[in-house]
Protein backbone atom coordinates (compact mmCIF):
# COMPACT_ATOMS: atom_id res chain seq x y z
CA UNK A 1 0.00 0.00 0.00
CA UNK A 2 1.50 3.32 -1.01
CA UNK A 3 1.51 6.26 1.31
CA UNK A 4 1.54 9.91 0.44
CA UNK A 5 1.77 12.95 2.64
CA UNK A 6 -0.49 15.92 2.26
CA UNK A 7 0.34 19.09 4.12
CA UNK A 8 2.18 17.20 6.75
CA UNK A 9 -0.66 14.81 7.39
CA UNK A 10 -0.13 11.25 6.42
CA UNK A 11 -2.82 10.08 4.04
CA UNK A 12 -2.88 6.46 3.13
CA UNK A 13 -3.62 5.80 -0.51
CA UNK A 14 -5.30 4.21 -2.26
CA UNK A 15 -7.77 3.66 0.57
CA UNK A 16 -9.22 7.15 0.55
CA UNK A 17 -9.07 7.37 -3.24
CA UNK A 18 -10.72 4.04 -3.81
CA UNK A 19 -13.35 4.65 -1.16
CA UNK A 20 -14.31 7.97 -2.74
CA UNK A 21 -14.38 6.39 -6.18
CA UNK A 22 -16.72 3.69 -4.95
CA UNK A 23 -18.91 5.80 -2.70
CA UNK A 24 -18.65 9.30 -4.12
CA UNK A 25 -21.58 8.94 -6.48
CA UNK A 26 -23.87 7.77 -3.75
CA UNK A 27 -22.72 10.57 -1.49
CA UNK A 28 -23.49 13.13 -4.20
CA UNK A 29 -26.95 11.68 -4.71
CA UNK A 30 -27.62 11.78 -1.01
CA UNK A 31 -26.29 15.33 -0.75
CA UNK A 32 -28.40 16.42 -3.70
CA UNK A 33 -31.69 15.40 -2.13
CA UNK A 34 -30.46 16.80 1.17
CA UNK A 35 -29.45 20.22 -0.13
CA UNK A 36 -31.80 20.53 -3.07
CA UNK A 37 -29.32 21.60 -5.71
CA UNK A 38 -26.19 20.36 -7.45
CA UNK A 39 -23.87 23.15 -6.38
CA UNK A 40 -24.56 22.75 -2.69
CA UNK A 41 -24.42 18.97 -3.03
CA UNK A 42 -20.90 19.13 -4.44
CA UNK A 43 -19.97 21.73 -1.85
CA UNK A 44 -21.04 19.73 1.18
CA UNK A 45 -19.55 16.49 -0.13
CA UNK A 46 -16.23 18.16 -0.88
CA UNK A 47 -16.32 19.86 2.49
CA UNK A 48 -17.01 16.61 4.31
CA UNK A 49 -14.33 14.74 2.39
CA UNK A 50 -11.79 17.51 2.90
CA UNK A 51 -12.28 17.11 6.62
CA UNK A 52 -12.33 13.34 6.40
CA UNK A 53 -8.88 13.17 4.80
CA UNK A 54 -7.08 14.25 7.93
CA UNK A 55 -8.96 11.74 10.03
CA UNK A 56 -9.09 8.99 7.43
CA UNK A 57 -7.09 6.37 9.31
CA UNK A 58 -9.39 6.82 12.30
CA UNK A 59 -12.51 6.80 10.13
CA UNK A 60 -11.34 3.65 8.38
CA UNK A 61 -10.90 2.03 11.74
CA UNK A 62 -14.59 2.52 12.45
CA UNK A 63 -16.92 -0.34 11.69
CA UNK A 64 -18.93 1.70 9.25
CA UNK A 65 -16.96 4.48 7.55
CA UNK A 66 -19.91 4.99 5.17
CA UNK A 67 -22.11 6.04 8.06
CA UNK A 68 -19.36 8.19 9.51
CA UNK A 69 -18.83 10.15 6.30
CA UNK A 70 -22.57 10.37 5.65
CA UNK A 71 -22.93 11.92 9.06
CA UNK A 72 -20.18 14.38 8.15
CA UNK A 73 -22.18 15.33 5.06
CA UNK A 74 -25.24 15.96 7.23
CA UNK A 75 -23.13 17.98 9.63
CA UNK A 76 -21.67 19.97 6.76
CA UNK A 77 -25.17 20.68 5.52
CA UNK A 78 -26.53 21.71 8.89
CA UNK A 79 -23.42 23.50 10.09
CA UNK A 80 -24.25 26.93 11.36
CA UNK A 81 -21.13 28.00 9.59
CA UNK A 82 -22.53 26.86 6.29
CA UNK A 83 -25.81 28.60 7.01
CA UNK A 84 -23.82 31.72 7.56
CA UNK A 85 -22.01 31.41 4.26
CA UNK A 86 -24.99 30.28 2.24
CA UNK A 87 -27.41 33.12 2.42
CA UNK A 88 -29.60 32.23 -0.53
CA UNK A 89 -33.01 30.77 0.10
CA UNK A 90 -34.31 27.83 -1.90
CA UNK A 91 -36.25 28.91 -4.94
CA UNK A 92 -37.95 27.08 -7.72
CA UNK A 93 -35.65 25.28 -10.16
CA UNK A 94 -34.03 27.71 -12.55
CA UNK A 95 -34.74 26.83 -16.16
CA UNK A 96 -31.58 26.99 -18.16
CA UNK A 97 -32.87 25.78 -21.50
CA UNK A 98 -34.82 28.92 -22.34
CA UNK A 99 -38.07 27.04 -22.54
CA UNK A 100 -41.24 28.37 -21.05
CA UNK A 101 -43.43 26.72 -18.54
CA UNK A 102 -46.50 25.69 -20.46
CA UNK A 103 -48.60 24.17 -17.72
CA UNK A 104 -48.77 23.42 -14.07
CA UNK A 105 -45.81 21.44 -12.81
CA UNK A 106 -46.23 17.72 -12.34
CA UNK A 107 -47.15 16.40 -8.92
CA UNK A 108 -43.66 15.03 -8.30
CA UNK A 109 -42.10 18.37 -9.22
CA UNK A 110 -44.37 20.15 -6.80
CA UNK A 111 -43.54 17.61 -4.14
CA UNK A 112 -39.83 18.10 -4.74
CA UNK A 113 -40.12 21.87 -4.54
CA UNK A 114 -42.13 21.53 -1.36
CA UNK A 115 -39.39 19.31 0.06
CA UNK A 116 -36.81 21.94 -0.76
CA UNK A 117 -38.81 24.56 1.10
CA UNK A 118 -39.08 22.54 4.28
CA UNK A 119 -37.20 23.82 7.31
CA UNK A 120 -33.75 22.33 7.31
CA UNK A 121 -34.26 20.03 10.29
CA UNK A 122 -37.47 18.62 8.84
CA UNK A 123 -35.98 18.18 5.39
CA UNK A 124 -32.98 16.36 6.81
CA UNK A 125 -35.25 14.03 8.77
CA UNK A 126 -37.46 13.40 5.74
CA UNK A 127 -34.48 12.63 3.50
CA UNK A 128 -32.89 10.29 6.01
CA UNK A 129 -36.20 8.55 6.61
CA UNK A 130 -37.47 8.15 3.07
CA UNK A 131 -34.40 8.40 0.86
CA UNK A 132 -31.89 6.66 3.08
CA UNK A 133 -34.62 4.44 4.53
CA UNK A 134 -33.21 4.83 8.03
CA UNK A 135 -35.17 4.06 11.16
CA UNK A 136 -35.82 6.70 13.78
CA UNK A 137 -33.09 5.55 16.12
CA UNK A 138 -30.50 5.81 13.36
CA UNK A 139 -31.74 9.25 12.36
CA UNK A 140 -31.60 10.35 15.98
CA UNK A 141 -28.04 9.17 16.16
CA UNK A 142 -26.96 10.85 12.96
CA UNK A 143 -28.60 14.18 13.76
CA UNK A 144 -27.80 14.22 17.46
CA UNK A 145 -31.36 14.72 18.68
CA UNK A 146 -33.71 12.46 20.54
CA UNK A 147 -35.79 9.88 18.77
CA UNK A 148 -38.97 11.67 19.77
CA UNK A 149 -37.71 14.81 18.12
CA UNK A 150 -37.00 12.89 14.93
CA UNK A 151 -40.53 11.46 14.89
CA UNK A 152 -41.88 14.96 15.37
CA UNK A 153 -39.76 16.37 12.56
CA UNK A 154 -40.80 13.65 10.14
CA UNK A 155 -44.45 14.02 11.06
CA UNK A 156 -44.39 17.80 10.78
CA UNK A 157 -42.47 17.59 7.53
CA UNK A 158 -45.03 15.26 6.02
CA UNK A 159 -47.85 17.49 7.24
CA UNK A 160 -46.17 20.50 5.65
CA UNK A 161 -45.75 18.66 2.36
CA UNK A 162 -49.38 17.58 2.35
CA UNK A 163 -50.46 21.12 3.12
CA UNK A 164 -48.35 22.59 0.33
CA UNK A 165 -49.73 20.09 -2.15
CA UNK A 166 -53.29 20.50 -0.97
CA UNK A 167 -53.21 16.84 -0.19
CA UNK A 168 -55.61 17.06 2.69
CA UNK A 169 -57.62 14.09 1.57
CA UNK A 170 -54.67 11.77 1.57
CA UNK A 171 -54.56 9.28 4.34
CA UNK A 172 -52.54 10.37 7.33
CA UNK A 173 -48.99 9.12 7.34
CA UNK A 174 -47.96 5.93 8.97
CA UNK A 175 -44.48 7.14 9.68
CA UNK A 176 -44.29 5.16 12.86
CA UNK A 177 -44.51 1.90 11.05
Amino acid at each position, binding site marked *: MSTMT*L*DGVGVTDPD*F*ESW*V*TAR*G*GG*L*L*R*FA*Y*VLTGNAADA*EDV*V*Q*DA*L*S*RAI*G*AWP*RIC*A*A*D*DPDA*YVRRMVVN*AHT*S*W*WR*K*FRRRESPVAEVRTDGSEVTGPPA*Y*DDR*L*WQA*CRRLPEAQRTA*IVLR*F*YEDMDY*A*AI*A*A*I*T*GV*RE*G*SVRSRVSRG*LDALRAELGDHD*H*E*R*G*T*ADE
Partner: protein
Amino acid sequence: MSDFEKRVRDTLAGQADKAPGDASGLADAARARRGRRRTAIGGAVVAAAVVAAIPLGLALVDRGDSGGRDSAARESTSPDTGAADPASDLPEIPDGWRWESWRNVEVAVPGDWRDGSAYDLCIPGAPNQPAGNISRDAYQADFEPDVEGTASCPQGVTFLAGTPKEPIAAGDGVAKRVSLAGNTLDVVAADQETLDQVVASAHEITETDSLGCAPSIEFGTAAFGEAEGAVTMCDYVIGGYGSDRSTPVLDSSRTLKEAQGEQLTAALTSTRTMANAAKVDPGCTLSKGAPPVLVHRLQVGDVVLVDIASSDCGGTQIVTGDGPQQLDYALLDAVDPATMSLG
Protein backbone atom coordinates in the same frame (compact mmCIF):
# COMPACT_ATOMS: atom_id res chain seq x y z
CA MET B 1 -45.82 3.23 4.70
CA SER B 2 -48.69 5.28 3.31
CA ASP B 3 -49.18 6.08 -0.35
CA PHE B 4 -48.07 9.62 0.29
CA GLU B 5 -44.89 8.47 2.01
CA LYS B 6 -44.17 6.15 -0.91
CA ARG B 7 -44.64 9.11 -3.21
CA VAL B 8 -42.14 11.09 -1.15
CA ARG B 9 -39.69 8.22 -1.31
CA ASP B 10 -40.07 7.80 -5.07
CA THR B 11 -39.80 11.53 -5.67
CA LEU B 12 -36.57 11.79 -3.69
CA ALA B 13 -35.14 8.76 -5.46
CA GLY B 14 -36.06 10.24 -8.81
CA GLN B 15 -34.53 13.59 -7.97
CA ALA B 16 -31.32 11.94 -6.85
CA ASP B 17 -30.75 11.00 -10.47
CA LYS B 18 -30.22 14.69 -11.15
CA ALA B 19 -27.24 14.83 -8.81
CA PRO B 20 -23.83 15.59 -10.29
CA GLY B 21 -22.87 12.32 -11.92
CA ASP B 22 -19.12 12.56 -12.06
CA ALA B 23 -17.52 11.60 -8.78
CA SER B 24 -14.10 11.00 -10.29
CA GLY B 25 -12.69 14.33 -9.21
CA LEU B 26 -14.10 14.34 -5.72
CA ALA B 27 -10.99 13.08 -3.97
CA ASP B 28 -8.76 15.62 -5.70
CA ALA B 29 -11.24 18.40 -5.03
CA ALA B 30 -11.39 17.46 -1.37
CA ARG B 31 -7.60 17.46 -1.16
CA ALA B 32 -7.42 20.84 -2.85
CA ARG B 33 -9.98 22.27 -0.48
CA ARG B 34 -8.14 20.94 2.51
CA GLY B 35 -4.93 22.39 1.12
CA ARG B 36 -6.54 25.80 0.63
CA ARG B 37 -7.87 25.80 4.14
CA ARG B 38 -4.54 24.89 5.61
CA THR B 39 -2.72 27.34 3.38
CA ALA B 40 -5.04 30.15 4.39
CA ILE B 41 -4.48 29.45 8.04
CA GLY B 42 -0.77 28.84 7.62
CA GLY B 43 -0.41 31.98 5.56
CA ALA B 44 -2.04 33.98 8.25
CA VAL B 45 0.31 32.57 10.83
CA VAL B 46 3.35 33.41 8.71
CA ALA B 47 2.03 36.91 8.13
CA ALA B 48 1.70 37.38 11.83
CA ALA B 49 5.23 36.19 12.43
CA VAL B 50 6.74 38.99 10.38
CA VAL B 51 4.79 41.69 12.12
CA ALA B 52 7.29 43.38 14.44
CA ALA B 53 4.74 44.26 17.06
CA ILE B 54 1.83 41.93 17.47
CA PRO B 55 -1.10 44.26 17.98
CA LEU B 56 -2.78 42.11 20.52
CA GLY B 57 0.42 41.00 22.18
CA LEU B 58 -0.83 37.55 22.94
CA ALA B 59 1.44 35.00 24.48
CA LEU B 60 -0.30 31.73 24.19
CA VAL B 61 0.06 28.90 26.60
CA ASP B 62 -0.29 25.29 25.56
CA ARG B 63 -2.38 23.38 28.03
CA GLY B 64 -1.12 20.12 26.63
CA ASP B 65 -4.50 18.69 25.73
CA SER B 66 -4.94 16.39 22.82
CA GLY B 67 -8.37 17.07 21.47
CA GLY B 68 -10.21 19.89 19.85
CA ARG B 69 -13.10 21.01 21.96
CA ASP B 70 -12.84 18.60 24.80
CA SER B 71 -11.26 17.21 27.89
CA ALA B 72 -8.27 18.91 29.34
CA ALA B 73 -8.75 22.12 27.41
CA ARG B 74 -10.67 23.44 30.38
CA GLU B 75 -8.13 22.58 33.03
CA SER B 76 -7.83 25.81 34.89
CA THR B 77 -4.61 27.80 34.82
CA SER B 78 -4.69 31.43 35.74
CA PRO B 79 -3.45 33.77 33.03
CA ASP B 80 -0.82 36.22 34.11
CA THR B 81 -2.97 39.31 34.01
CA GLY B 82 -3.32 40.12 37.64
CA ALA B 83 -7.01 39.42 37.32
CA ALA B 84 -8.80 37.59 40.08
CA ASP B 85 -8.68 33.85 39.63
CA PRO B 86 -12.26 32.81 38.90
CA ALA B 87 -11.44 29.27 40.00
CA SER B 88 -10.35 30.26 43.47
CA ASP B 89 -13.79 29.81 45.03
CA LEU B 90 -14.55 26.53 43.34
CA PRO B 91 -14.76 23.31 45.34
CA GLU B 92 -11.87 20.92 45.00
CA ILE B 93 -12.23 18.27 42.36
CA PRO B 94 -10.26 15.06 41.78
CA ASP B 95 -7.01 15.24 39.83
CA GLY B 96 -7.59 15.03 36.11
CA TRP B 97 -11.14 16.33 36.30
CA ARG B 98 -12.24 19.58 34.70
CA TRP B 99 -15.16 21.99 34.77
CA GLU B 100 -17.91 22.23 32.16
CA SER B 101 -20.24 25.21 32.11
CA TRP B 102 -23.55 25.94 30.40
CA ARG B 103 -25.85 28.89 30.81
CA ASN B 104 -25.57 29.73 34.52
CA VAL B 105 -24.42 26.37 35.88
CA GLU B 106 -21.11 24.54 36.06
CA VAL B 107 -20.19 20.98 36.92
CA ALA B 108 -16.96 19.01 37.28
CA VAL B 109 -16.48 15.89 35.16
CA PRO B 110 -13.77 13.23 34.76
CA GLY B 111 -11.10 14.15 32.23
CA ASP B 112 -12.01 11.30 29.92
CA TRP B 113 -15.56 12.57 29.42
CA ARG B 114 -15.55 14.60 26.25
CA ASP B 115 -17.64 17.47 25.01
CA GLY B 116 -19.96 16.59 22.14
CA SER B 117 -22.97 14.64 21.02
CA ALA B 118 -23.01 10.90 21.43
CA TYR B 119 -23.02 10.48 17.67
CA ASP B 120 -19.86 12.49 17.33
CA LEU B 121 -18.13 10.56 20.04
CA CYS B 122 -19.75 7.19 20.51
CA ILE B 123 -21.08 6.05 17.16
CA PRO B 124 -20.94 2.25 17.24
CA GLY B 125 -17.52 1.14 16.09
CA ALA B 126 -15.97 4.58 16.20
CA PRO B 127 -12.37 4.58 17.39
CA ASN B 128 -11.18 6.31 20.53
CA GLN B 129 -14.55 6.42 22.17
CA PRO B 130 -14.54 8.43 25.39
CA ALA B 131 -15.72 7.14 28.72
CA GLY B 132 -18.52 9.70 28.67
CA ASN B 133 -19.84 12.76 26.90
CA ILE B 134 -21.01 16.25 27.80
CA SER B 135 -24.15 17.06 25.87
CA ARG B 136 -25.72 20.47 25.68
CA ASP B 137 -29.37 21.15 25.04
CA ALA B 138 -28.95 21.90 21.36
CA TYR B 139 -27.24 18.57 20.87
CA GLN B 140 -29.32 16.31 23.02
CA ALA B 141 -27.63 12.97 22.89
CA ASP B 142 -28.96 9.52 23.50
CA PHE B 143 -26.44 8.07 25.85
CA GLU B 144 -28.69 5.39 27.21
CA PRO B 145 -26.44 2.36 26.91
CA ASP B 146 -29.43 0.05 26.86
CA VAL B 147 -30.42 1.19 23.39
CA GLU B 148 -28.29 -1.19 21.43
CA GLY B 149 -27.30 -0.18 17.96
CA THR B 150 -27.57 3.56 18.50
CA ALA B 151 -24.81 5.98 19.21
CA SER B 152 -24.35 6.02 22.94
CA CYS B 153 -21.82 6.84 25.58
CA PRO B 154 -22.00 4.85 28.82
CA GLN B 155 -21.60 7.91 31.03
CA GLY B 156 -22.11 11.61 30.76
CA VAL B 157 -23.79 14.86 31.67
CA THR B 158 -26.66 16.34 29.70
CA PHE B 159 -27.46 20.00 30.30
CA LEU B 160 -31.11 20.80 29.71
CA ALA B 161 -33.06 24.03 29.98
CA GLY B 162 -36.09 23.69 32.22
CA THR B 163 -37.46 20.34 33.28
CA PRO B 164 -37.60 17.54 30.72
CA LYS B 165 -40.59 15.24 30.50
CA GLU B 166 -38.53 12.18 29.70
CA PRO B 167 -37.19 10.18 32.65
CA ILE B 168 -33.45 9.87 33.03
CA ALA B 169 -31.99 6.57 31.82
CA ALA B 170 -29.18 4.99 33.82
CA GLY B 171 -28.46 2.08 31.51
CA ASP B 172 -25.94 -0.17 33.22
CA GLY B 173 -24.76 2.63 35.48
CA VAL B 174 -26.24 4.94 38.08
CA ALA B 175 -27.99 8.20 37.34
CA LYS B 176 -29.25 11.32 39.05
CA ARG B 177 -31.24 14.28 37.81
CA VAL B 178 -30.23 17.60 39.31
CA SER B 179 -32.38 20.75 39.16
CA LEU B 180 -30.24 23.85 39.47
CA ALA B 181 -30.92 27.51 38.79
CA GLY B 182 -33.66 26.82 36.28
CA ASN B 183 -31.77 24.05 34.51
CA THR B 184 -31.62 20.29 34.64
CA LEU B 185 -28.42 18.27 34.72
CA ASP B 186 -28.83 14.59 33.91
CA VAL B 187 -25.79 12.75 35.19
CA VAL B 188 -25.04 9.12 34.38
CA ALA B 189 -21.94 7.42 35.76
CA ALA B 190 -20.58 3.95 35.92
CA ASP B 191 -20.31 3.95 39.71
CA GLN B 192 -21.88 5.69 42.68
CA GLU B 193 -18.69 7.47 43.79
CA THR B 194 -18.22 9.16 40.42
CA LEU B 195 -21.88 10.08 40.29
CA ASP B 196 -21.74 11.61 43.76
CA GLN B 197 -18.63 13.63 42.94
CA VAL B 198 -20.12 15.02 39.75
CA VAL B 199 -23.42 15.87 41.41
CA ALA B 200 -21.74 17.46 44.44
CA SER B 201 -19.68 19.74 42.22
CA ALA B 202 -22.68 21.22 40.40
CA HIS B 203 -23.20 24.87 41.24
CA GLU B 204 -24.74 28.03 39.93
CA ILE B 205 -22.44 30.53 38.21
CA THR B 206 -22.92 33.81 39.97
CA GLU B 207 -20.25 35.95 38.27
CA THR B 208 -18.06 33.86 35.98
CA ASP B 209 -17.33 30.20 35.38
CA SER B 210 -13.99 28.60 36.21
CA LEU B 211 -12.37 30.13 33.13
CA GLY B 212 -13.75 33.60 33.68
CA CYS B 213 -16.69 33.47 31.27
CA ALA B 214 -19.84 35.28 32.39
CA PRO B 215 -23.17 33.45 32.08
CA SER B 216 -24.40 36.14 29.71
CA ILE B 217 -22.83 39.14 27.97
CA GLU B 218 -23.73 42.07 25.78
CA PHE B 219 -22.30 41.55 22.32
CA GLY B 220 -19.71 44.11 21.27
CA THR B 221 -19.61 45.78 24.66
CA ALA B 222 -16.72 44.91 26.96
CA ALA B 223 -13.43 46.08 28.35
CA PHE B 224 -11.71 45.30 25.05
CA GLY B 225 -7.96 45.51 25.09
CA GLU B 226 -4.66 43.67 24.77
CA ALA B 227 -3.23 41.20 27.23
CA GLU B 228 -0.75 38.37 27.54
CA GLY B 229 -1.69 34.92 28.72
CA ALA B 230 -3.71 31.90 27.85
CA VAL B 231 -6.61 32.67 25.56
CA THR B 232 -10.05 31.59 26.72
CA MET B 233 -12.86 31.15 24.25
CA CYS B 234 -16.28 31.74 25.77
CA ASP B 235 -19.02 30.46 23.46
CA TYR B 236 -22.48 32.00 23.65
CA VAL B 237 -25.79 31.53 21.87
CA ILE B 238 -28.25 34.29 21.04
CA GLY B 239 -31.83 33.15 20.63
CA GLY B 240 -31.23 29.66 21.96
CA TYR B 241 -32.43 27.86 25.07
CA GLY B 242 -35.58 29.96 25.15
CA SER B 243 -33.59 33.16 25.70
CA ASP B 244 -34.33 36.50 24.12
CA ARG B 245 -33.10 37.71 20.73
CA SER B 246 -30.28 39.93 21.87
CA THR B 247 -28.57 38.37 24.89
CA PRO B 248 -25.71 35.93 24.31
CA VAL B 249 -26.12 33.10 26.83
CA LEU B 250 -23.14 30.93 27.80
CA ASP B 251 -22.88 27.63 25.93
CA SER B 252 -19.38 26.49 26.90
CA SER B 253 -15.87 27.71 27.57
CA ARG B 254 -12.38 26.41 27.05
CA THR B 255 -8.76 27.41 27.00
CA LEU B 256 -7.33 27.30 23.50
CA LYS B 257 -4.49 25.09 22.50
CA GLU B 258 -1.39 26.92 21.34
CA ALA B 259 -1.93 26.16 17.65
CA GLN B 260 -5.55 27.26 17.77
CA GLY B 261 -4.58 30.41 19.58
CA GLU B 262 -1.90 31.14 17.00
CA GLN B 263 -4.40 30.84 14.19
CA LEU B 264 -6.75 33.22 15.88
CA THR B 265 -4.00 35.62 16.86
CA ALA B 266 -2.73 35.71 13.33
CA ALA B 267 -6.18 36.23 11.94
CA LEU B 268 -6.86 39.01 14.40
CA THR B 269 -3.77 40.88 13.27
CA SER B 270 -5.18 41.07 9.77
CA THR B 271 -8.56 42.53 10.66
CA ARG B 272 -9.30 46.03 9.49
CA THR B 273 -11.55 48.58 11.08
CA MET B 274 -14.72 49.28 9.16
CA ALA B 275 -14.61 52.56 7.30
CA ASN B 276 -17.90 53.64 8.85
CA ALA B 277 -17.15 52.13 12.26
CA ALA B 278 -18.38 55.18 14.12
CA LYS B 279 -21.82 54.75 12.61
CA VAL B 280 -22.08 51.00 13.13
CA ASP B 281 -24.16 49.65 15.99
CA PRO B 282 -21.95 47.01 17.61
CA GLY B 283 -24.92 45.24 19.15
CA CYS B 284 -26.54 42.06 17.94
CA THR B 285 -30.30 41.69 17.84
CA LEU B 286 -31.92 38.90 15.89
CA SER B 287 -34.90 39.62 13.71
CA LYS B 288 -38.09 37.79 14.59
CA GLY B 289 -37.92 34.16 13.58
CA ALA B 290 -34.21 34.25 12.84
CA PRO B 291 -32.24 31.14 13.82
CA PRO B 292 -29.91 31.29 16.81
CA VAL B 293 -26.52 32.92 16.38
CA LEU B 294 -23.33 31.77 18.01
CA VAL B 295 -20.97 34.27 19.56
CA HIS B 296 -17.34 33.66 20.41
CA ARG B 297 -15.74 35.92 22.99
CA LEU B 298 -11.96 35.57 23.23
CA GLN B 299 -10.43 36.86 26.39
CA VAL B 300 -7.28 36.74 28.45
CA GLY B 301 -8.24 36.96 32.06
CA ASP B 302 -10.79 39.74 32.26
CA VAL B 303 -9.48 41.49 29.16
CA VAL B 304 -11.70 40.82 26.16
CA LEU B 305 -9.86 40.60 22.84
CA VAL B 306 -12.72 40.23 20.41
CA ASP B 307 -16.40 39.36 20.02
CA ILE B 308 -17.28 37.35 16.91
CA ALA B 309 -20.80 36.46 15.79
CA SER B 310 -21.48 33.59 13.41
CA SER B 311 -23.98 35.59 11.42
CA ASP B 312 -25.16 39.08 10.70
CA CYS B 313 -27.36 40.05 13.58
CA GLY B 314 -28.27 43.64 12.95
CA GLY B 315 -24.96 45.29 13.76
CA THR B 316 -21.48 44.10 13.05
CA GLN B 317 -20.00 40.62 13.42
CA ILE B 318 -16.52 41.36 14.73
CA VAL B 319 -15.73 43.88 17.43
CA THR B 320 -12.31 44.51 18.98
CA GLY B 321 -10.74 47.32 20.94
CA ASP B 322 -10.54 49.16 17.64
CA GLY B 323 -14.30 48.96 17.26
CA PRO B 324 -16.30 47.14 14.60
CA GLN B 325 -14.05 45.29 12.18
CA GLN B 326 -14.52 44.27 8.59
CA LEU B 327 -15.58 40.69 8.00
CA ASP B 328 -12.46 38.58 7.73
CA TYR B 329 -12.70 35.05 6.42
CA ALA B 330 -9.34 34.00 7.82
CA LEU B 331 -10.67 34.86 11.25
CA LEU B 332 -13.96 33.12 10.59
CA ASP B 333 -12.14 30.01 9.41
CA ALA B 334 -9.99 30.10 12.49
CA VAL B 335 -13.02 29.83 14.77
CA ASP B 336 -14.87 27.33 12.58
CA PRO B 337 -15.47 24.44 14.99
CA ALA B 338 -15.18 21.88 12.22
CA THR B 339 -11.78 23.20 11.20
CA MET B 340 -10.65 23.29 14.78
CA SER B 341 -11.67 19.73 15.44
CA LEU B 342 -10.41 18.04 12.32
CA GLY B 343 -8.17 20.49 10.49
